[in-house]
Structure formats: structure tokens, C-alpha cells
């Protein structure tokens, strides 16, 4: 087991109230497996990634456990975390355009992590950075390493982000929306690259794109309003989805007719009583409005949070 997350709650204060971005999540990720975390924008999935990395604002309260290789990350000191970030666990942030420092050369941005974690000198780290750029198939990497981010196209920047994440050979990777905003061809290339690069690593793939998840993931979890509503192996989700939300999500795939889920995802400050999905659920009954359903194992390895789960 690479990582076990139990009873995780991430809440942070804002002037409008407390945002419960992650509100009780349990999951575990095995060595070398790719775990997909799917949900709409604003369901809290990015926060989960940042919670694992402990990159949230100090005012955030985090409860529960994140056990990585036997160590509870939530109890690690900031100094320990710094040795884990980038070296053990890397995160490939969404939005490469804003996630790359505009006034720093690309090669340098990759090399600085290498210097830090692998103790290489400036020159060797720079060489390693060029290697990484080469590995993510950026043409003429030694020249590109001396360029600034604005000189790269969107797909290229995403490759840089991947190179940056993998530069120190981490054993666990969090990839947050790696294909967002890319056109179909580029997306396919990136997916291919991701698959190749993370073959023997554990990865948490955060995305709202089921097609990408289907390409890459071993298991998939669906997140809704801060909690997991269903998780199962790839096949289970795609062939026998149990939760109405999952079904709705699958229905929004292009080949299934692009039917959007009606309604809006709830604010993370003020959840509806009972099942958090019930205002948008066509099957909602009295019990759904009253009682918050528990996550139960419906089939072996297939968990669902629904009063009316059926196959």
C-alpha cells in the first residue's frame, strides 16, 4: 500500500464561512497503481491533492490521517515535508501557463528541484534538466531549456510540468488535470506520455475528464461535494456504475451523447441535508433528503454512497 487516507477532512475559513472542501474521505492507493479521482470543478478534488502535499494555507484545518509509506504526513514537520515534496511525492499542477514562473528559464525551474533533492551542482542539474526535457519529448531540449515559459505552446508547457514533476524520480505522483485545455491530438500525446512516464509509479490522477481516466487509471473514485460517492476498479465504474452521479457523469461523455447533469454542484460551505446529491438526483426520495448515506461496499472493491444503489 503506497498511501492510505482515512477520515480526511480539510476545512478552511473564508470571509463567507468555512469551506469544507474535503469532508471525510477514505481511500487507499496501491504501489504502481494509477488512481483516478473524478469530479466536477469545485468538488474539492484539487484540495485533496494539495492536502496530501500539505500545501494549503496555515489557516486550513486538516483532520484524519494520510499514511504514506507508513508515515502520517499530517504529523510530519514542515522540514520533513520539504524532503518529501518533489522527491517522494510530486504534484503536477493544473494550468501550466500560470504554474510556471514567467521570469525564470524553464531549464532552471526543473533544475532547482534536482539540485535540492539530488545534491547535484548547478551544471549537472542543468544537464539533468535537459535530459528530462528530452524524456518528455521536447525537441532540441538544450536550447529550449534556456527559454522562458511564454515561448512554449500549451502542450509543451504541460510537458515541462511533467518533466518538472518527475525530475527527482518520485514514487508517488499527483497529476492535477494534466490535459485541461489541450486539444484532442495534444491531449492524446500527453496521455501517452503520462502512461509511459508513470509506468512503475503510483499516481493519483485528478481530472474531470473520464476519457483520460479510462486511458490511464486502474481504479477510479468519483468525488462530489467534498466526499467520495463511488469508487471501484475501472471496469466497475464504466460497466456497472451504481451512483446516479456516476451515471450522470458517464452520460456526459461524448460517445454517450453529452448529456449534462442537471443543476449545479453545491457550495462547499453549505451542504444540503441528507444525501448531498439529492437536489440534483432524479431518484431522490424522502430518505435521501433526511439521511446522509454511508459509503458501503456493494460489490467486492466497489464502494458506493447511495440509499438506492442497485446494479
Amino acid at each position: 500500500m503506497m498511501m492510505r487516507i482515512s477520515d480526511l477532512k480539510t476545512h478552511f475559513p473564508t470571509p463567507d464561512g468555512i469551506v469544507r472542501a474535503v469532508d471525510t474521505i477514505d481511500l487507499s492507493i496501491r504501489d504502481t497503481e494509477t488512481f483516478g479521482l473524478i469530479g466536477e470543478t469545485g468538488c474539492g478534488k484539487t484540495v485533496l491533492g494539495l492536502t496530501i502535499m500539505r500545501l494549503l494555507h496555515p489557516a486550513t484545518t486538516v483532520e484524519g490521517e494520510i499514511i504514506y509509506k507508513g508515515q502520517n504526513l499530517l504529523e510530519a514537520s514542515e522540514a520533513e515535508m520539504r524532503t518529501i515534496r518533489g522527491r517522494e511525492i510530486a504534484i503536477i499542477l493544473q494550468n501550466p501557463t500560470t504554474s510556471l514562473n514567467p521570469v525564470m528559464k524553464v531549464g532552471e525551474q526543473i533544475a532547482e528541484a534536482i539540485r535540492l533533492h539530488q545534491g547535484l551542482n548547478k551544471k549537472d542539474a542543468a544537464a539533468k534538466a535537459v535530459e528530462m526535457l528530452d524524456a518528455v519529448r521536447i525537441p532540441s531540449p538544450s536550447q529550449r531549456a534556456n527559454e522562458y515559459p511564454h515561448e512554449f505552446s500549451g502542450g509543451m508547457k504541460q510537458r515541462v510540468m511533467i518533466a518538472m514533476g518527475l525530475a527527482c524520480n518520485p514514487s508517488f505522483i499527483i497529476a492535477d488535470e494534466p490535459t485541461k485545455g489541450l486539444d484532442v491530438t495534444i491531449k492524446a500525446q500527453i496521455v501517452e506520455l503520462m502512461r509511459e512516464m508513470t509506468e512503475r509509479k503510483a499516481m493519483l490522477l485528478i481530472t474531470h475528464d473520464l476519457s483520460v481516466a479510462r486511458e490511464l487509471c486502474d481504479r477510479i473514485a468519483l468525488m462530489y461535494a467534498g466526499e467520495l460517492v463511488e469508487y471501484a476498479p475501472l471496469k466497475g465504474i464504466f460497466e456497472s456504475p451504481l451512483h446516479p452521479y456516476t451515471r450522470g457523469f458517464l452520460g456526459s461523455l461524448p460517445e454517450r451523447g453529452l448529456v449534462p447533469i442537471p443543476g449545479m454542484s453545491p457550495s462547499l460551505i453549505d451542504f444540503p441535508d441528507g444525501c448531498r446529491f439529492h437536489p440534483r438526483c432524479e431518484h431522490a426520495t424522502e430518505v435521501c433528503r433526511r439521511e446522509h448515506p454511508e459509503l458501503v461496499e456493494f460489490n467486492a472493491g466497489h464502494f458506493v454512497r447511495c440509499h438506492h444503489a442497485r446494479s
Partner: protein
Amino acid sequence: MTGVTVKDVLGSLGLGILVILVAVSIFAPQIAPYDPHDTYKPMEHPSSEHLLGTNDVGNDILSEVIYGTRVSLFIAFTVSITAIVIGTALGLIAGYSGGVLGFLIMRIVDIFLTIPRLVLIIVIAAFMPRSIWTIIVVFIIFGWVMTARIVRSEVLTLRSQYYVESARMLGGSDLYILWRHILPNVIPLVVVQFIMEASHVIIAEAGLSFLGLGDPVARSWGTTFHYAFECPNIITSDVWMWWMLPPGLCIVATVLGFTFVGYALEERLNPKLKTVVGMGV
């Protein structure tokens, strides 16, 4: 964590200062113990009769400073209100209509911003008759520039936003769109700008008066300070404590009041600065 924040404390403190000062200037005749033009024995030290002593011609300094509040605030408010109105109007025109007019306005703005403002004001003030109206007019001439620039850029942003577009599609007149859609969005910025302008004028007027270019009859704080500074034994004796310090501190308090209010408002209005909590969400 929706409790009292620093900006709230500073904001209310600033507001408090300003309210007191405005009250003092309105009720100056009631508050001041004497008419500032009445003369008593000159250069008296503070006593129960003259709490801050008397100046070189025997005016009660406390009364002079209290009446000075009127002059200083009058100049500050007159200038900043007028300058802001002009600046907002020109900014709206430049931003909304674009074209030759907008271009011209913005070039003028650029030039005005490049020319060292107070240096030119000093030069002009040196040649004009010394009266508060000269000062007011000269300050207005230079005061509208920054507002026009800020309003224009905000209008440009707003204009491209959908609701203005849709209002236009629905056939609203330009004036209606300006009035109904753009102006309300510009107001908060203008308020901050007003505050900054007012505090700038307070300092600049005091500076001009300090250099002896102010209105010698309407004694603002700067003028009182000027006379104190010219007093030959101001430094070598304790006289500065009751003659120089009070008008100086009044200037500081006013500027601080404006600064605090402006700071609190800006923090509230500028979402970028609002909070870094939950970055990445």
C-alpha cells in the same frame, strides 16, 4: 474566522479621526476658545488661558489650529471632489468612446503624469496671487489625471464584459449604459481615489504653505507651521512644542485618517488582495 481584522480596526480608526476633524471644522467657532484674529500678549507659553500659548503676534494658537482645520479640510475636499468628478467624467469618456477624443485625453494624462506635479505647482503658485482659490484651482488642474486613468482602464475592462454588451444589444443608449452599468462599478474605485487625492492635497497644500506660497490670510495648518518655522527661536527654545507640533500633528492625523480609510477600502474592494486562503481552489 470572520472576526475583527486589522483593516477593520484601521478603517474605523481612520474614519473616527476624519469624523472628529470634520466636526471640529464645522463647530470651530463653538470649540475654539478665542477668535483666531484676536490678539493677546505675544509668545506666551501655554497656560490655562491659552492652552497652546500665543504666537508671534499674540493670536491664540489653539484657536488658530482649530480654525486651520476648516481651511485645510475645505481645500482638501473642494479640490478632491472637483478633481474626482472631472477625472471620472474624462475617464468615462476616454474609456467608453475611445476614438480621437479618448486618445487625446489619454495623451494629456500621460503628459501630466510625466511632468513633476508639485514642482510645476510651486512654479505656478509663485506667480499667482496668493489666495486659497489659486491653490484650489492649481490643484484641480493636476488632480484629475490619475482618476481619469484609473477610471478609463476600469471602463475598458467593464465594456468588454457581457452585460454591457447585452445591454447594448438590447438597445440602451450610450448614456444609459454609462449611467446604469458602468458608473456603479466605477464608484468604489473613485471613492478610493478620492481619499488618496484628499490626503495628497492636504500634504501638498501644507507643503506650499510651508514654503510661504500659501494664502497668508486663511491660515491653514501649513501656514501656521510656516510662521512657526520662521520664528527665530523656534528650535532653541521649547516654543516648537506648542506652536509647531500641533499643526504638524493635525496634518499627520488627517493624512493618517485618509490613509487608514483608504487602505481598509482598498483591501475590501480589490479581491486580489482579499485573501490568499485556499489558493489553488
